[in-house]
């Protein structure tokens, strides 16, 4: 079978053909026109001597590139060869062994620095934060250095960056908790996922793939992994000895109370309970884990204990109240308001976080998203998520592993589907006008509840009359389930872990009361 090659339009006598084949060394189009001035000479010396043995022609295998003109296969072969040579060049070779570990430490430090800068600039962390992070990092380096070089184990992961930052913020008593860090990394406000893209190119090409994949941080921490890592990091550097390891419990409580729009009394209830239970305030310090293999009881982590106290307080207060101050209707509206979606920045962030965790009941919430929410999510995608994707249009310099043809194809595709930034900006400006701030939204949510809170005890009988309302105990349980599912998503622990933790605390409390 003769093979046709696609090429430029023939054009002789308006011939429309674009298909060519080579007959006797001359390029001939589908309808038999011979291309002018395109004859392949076969002027090798050996052929002249061996004419009788039959002519051997050497033919260029022609392929076409994206623009439709011919491109010789030999050329591309030589290009490929060049590329390979360049790759095998010493400068681009992957490092191994001790050198690789050193480079990994350097890269890790680089990313840590980026994260710290980002926190100081975007989140208004104090300047001293930088120094504290440095000191902690040096301590970790020192423990690594103390190990014998033969069995050097780095035990660093992307979660280690978060735990270092967390330790630093705890030392400074900043009101920042794991839930905040998780929110920031999931909504790409802080470099974490695809962080290896931030590295200088020379480093990235020489870093072994294993370490690169660590720095990609592909999976967000789940099932309390982050807590375990924090405890382990704490243990390796003996954090409690030289730093302030007490978590700022008041801030966390305030945050929780506001998030679920509970009356302010609950803040004091919980605080009293914690003071009653944890005689020594030192108990709310970070836990140092020295055992590498066993994660230990989940209730060892101070933050989780606070959450458990919070949940227990809600449960007991509502249960003992018997419709005096917190009527059933209020509980029901509160439960409903937790599922209510708005397009504020906070709830968009929460949406993004909940999307990331697949095994939570909130992970399928997007089936109920409103158009606004979807639009906000897409805006976030454009601004934050897409720039972290390596081969996207935004940083074309990074797309070296694509051939020129692929690049052209991509660009054409993006032209067909433009993500027009002009309309985006307009929409953004419009949105920010009517978008509620956090405080406004909070006020609104509190305002919605006030009619149901009978502080002056005017209508103590109303709820009892409604037969179709669920029993009070059920309603409280439903509320707590809701809170638990949100908390477990926010703090990246499984619901079972939260349940265990609450159970342990409850037992301890009852034990103490007796």
């Amino acid at each position, binding site marked *: *079978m003769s093979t*046709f090659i*696609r090429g430029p339009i023939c054009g002789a006598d308006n011939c*429309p*053909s*674009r*298909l060519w084949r080579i007959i006797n060394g001359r390029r001939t189009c*589908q309808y038999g026109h011979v291309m002018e001035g395109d004859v392949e000479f076969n002027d090798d010396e050996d052929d002249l001597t061996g004419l009788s043995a039959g002519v051997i022609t050497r033919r260029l295998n022609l392929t076409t590139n*994206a623009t439709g003109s011919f491109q010789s296969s030999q050329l591309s072969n030589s290009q490929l060869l060049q590329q390979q040579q360049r790759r095998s060049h010493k400068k681009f070779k992957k490092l191994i062994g001790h050198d690789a570990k050193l480079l990994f430490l350097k890269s890790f430090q680089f990313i840590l620095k980026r994260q710290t800068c980002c926190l100081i600039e975007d989140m208004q962390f104090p300047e001293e934060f930088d120094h504290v992070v440095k000191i902690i990092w040096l301590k970790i380096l020192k423990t690594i250095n103390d190990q014998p070089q033969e069995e050097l184990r780095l035990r660093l992961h992307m979660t280690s960056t978060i735990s270092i930052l967390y330790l630093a913020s705890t030392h400074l008593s900043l009101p920042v908790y794991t839930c905040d860090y998780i929110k920031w990394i*999931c909504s790409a406000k802080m470099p974490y*996922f*695809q962080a290896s893209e931030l590295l200088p190119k020379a480093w990235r090409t020489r870093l072994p793939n294993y370490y690169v994949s660590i720095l990609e*941080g*592909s*999976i*967000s921490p*789940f099932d309390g992994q982050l807590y375990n890592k924090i405890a382990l990091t704490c243990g390796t550097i003996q954090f409690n000895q030289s730093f302030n390891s007490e978590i700022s419990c008041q801030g966390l409580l305030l945050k929780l109370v506001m998030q679920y729009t509970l009356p302010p009394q609950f803040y004091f209830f919980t605080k009293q309970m914690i003071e009653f239970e944890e005689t020594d305030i030192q108990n709310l310090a970070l836990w140092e884990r020295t055992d590498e293999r066993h994660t230990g009881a989940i209730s060892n982590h101070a933050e989780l204990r606070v959450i458990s106290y919070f949940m227990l307080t809600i449960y007991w207060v509502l249960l003992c109240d018997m419709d005096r101050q917190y009527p059933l209707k209020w509980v029901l509206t509160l439960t409903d308001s937790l599922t209510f979606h708005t397009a504020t920045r906070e709830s968009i962030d929460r949406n993004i976080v909940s*999307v*990331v*965790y*697949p*095994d939570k009941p909130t992970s*399928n919430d*997007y*089936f109920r*998203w409103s*158009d606004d929410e*979807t*639009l906000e*999510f*897409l805006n976030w*995608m*454009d601004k934050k*998520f*897409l720039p972290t*994707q*390596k*081969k*996207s*249009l935004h940083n074309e310099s990074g797309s070296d592993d694509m051939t020129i043809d692929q690049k052209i*194809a991509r660009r*054409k*595709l*993006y*032209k*067909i*589907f*433009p*993500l027009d930034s002009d309309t985006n900006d307009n929409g953004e400006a419009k949105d920010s006008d009517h978008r509620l701030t956090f405080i406004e939204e909070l006020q609104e949510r509190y305002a919605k509840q006030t009619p149901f809170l009978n502080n002056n005890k005017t209508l103590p009988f109303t709820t009892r009359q409604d037969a179709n309302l669920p029993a009070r105990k059920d309603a409280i349980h439903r509320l707590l389930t809701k809170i638990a599912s949100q908390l477990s998503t926010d703090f990246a622990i499984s619901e079972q872990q939260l349940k265990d933790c609450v159970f342990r605390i409850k037992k301890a409390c009852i034990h103490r009361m007796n």
Partner: protein
Amino acid sequence: MFEVPITLTNKKFAQRRKLKYQYINHLSRRFDKVAKTTNTTDSLPTPENSAVENNDDDYDYDEDEEQIDEADVYRRSILQQTKRRRERHWKSVVGELYSSTETESDSQQEEIQENDGRETGRKNGDTDEERKFWKKHEKPERSFEIWQTASLQNKGPINRRKMTYHKFQKIQKNSLRKVQIPLLHCTKENRLYFRSLSKGLEPLQTPTSTIRNYQTRHIITLTNLLHINVSRHNWSLAYRIFATLIRIPEVQMKSIWGFGVKILDNLPDSSSSLDFLQWMCQIYSSKARFVQNINHRSIVPPFQTGSRTHTAKFATTYLWASLINCQKSIEPSTINDKHYDMENDRLQELIDKISEWVLTPPFMEDAEVWFIYASCHLLKADILSRQFVNDGTKGDLIGLDRDIKINQVIKHIHYVKVFLQTCLDKGGFTIPNRLIEIQLKNFELRLYGETQDVQEREIVDGYDETDISSVENSFGDVYETNAEFLDTQLMDLSPEDNEMAENHHSDEESSE
């Protein structure tokens, strides 16, 4: 929830699949062994059975041998090898027309498989258990059903033997013992998964529900949002989602192009879907051979990419869309218009393009492409012949000019006939042959219009409006392309013909 446009590869899934297919293959091998020793001649001759026999007669080889010992097995394998070699030889001589799609690597694998039963073969058998399994099943490229093989080399008699439960358990136990060591090395979750699968239970969780990877999570979310918003006809939002989705590097365009076309069609002031389809054709029209031993896991192959034997769906969609587009834009314009010339050029361009396409493998054999090609010429002939109808009033064309134009029309009519014939020869595509013939006849009548005019008028007068409209309505989407001669020309048919045309069409619909 919905199909994700990326390949979900994961250590976990890979391990699961490997275990599964290793188990299945071993099980079937054991089964074959047991079944063979208990043997078999009492099965009735089936058509397939005898076909196999006839085939093998050439090689001096009898299917119904009583006892098959080691030597015979060996002899058979040698015979099969020679048969395969001969097949390959024939393929190289005849070219691609030779039907079986066996490749070099296939036969090698089969050899490995044969050895595997007797010897160890583990170290290389391990890697492609999945391929081995899928090779046994022929997967029609067009549909997604899995057939218990009809290809010649895998053909065997229908299995009518019964098996005791005891024997079955023995086989199962043996196979389970075989996978015990790999099971030791895999995760707890996968072990549970395998155990439940081997007991015939189906785990409820979908592959997407357990994936934790940050990027993949977002792709899953975007895909689901895309599905939701397309189903709600929320096109502007769907467009945003689609545009975002395709900018993530891992996303495969070929599994979501349908959405793109639909969205562009429905969204005003966006780029044309034709451009997009053209882009698809340029980038993804592969002429590689369809590989049978790969599990095409998610989407029916022709929707993703073309192969040597099948046209990709986006290619045919592109041709239909551009043909309809030409027809729609030519329809309102008159012949002397400047606009008309441009559109005519576009039609010519389309014809040129298809004429190139049909020279190369996948389109060469595709009846649908030939039919589109014929339809293009039909449209062209219609446009050209319409000049003569106008002539009746103006009387411009005379002499040489007229002869040239007549020749042009006749040339195109000839092309239509030739290409339709090719289309029929290729088969697999039902066409309204008779209807088109009538159309062509009408075009020819137009050329010599003066004599026929009177008759035509009479016939037109004979019908009332309702009749015509009913004819029009009876034609569905398929005839959108030819709509312009439906309203002008169908009125020439006698009532019987009309009915026939309708019947024909309904036949076609039912066959599709």
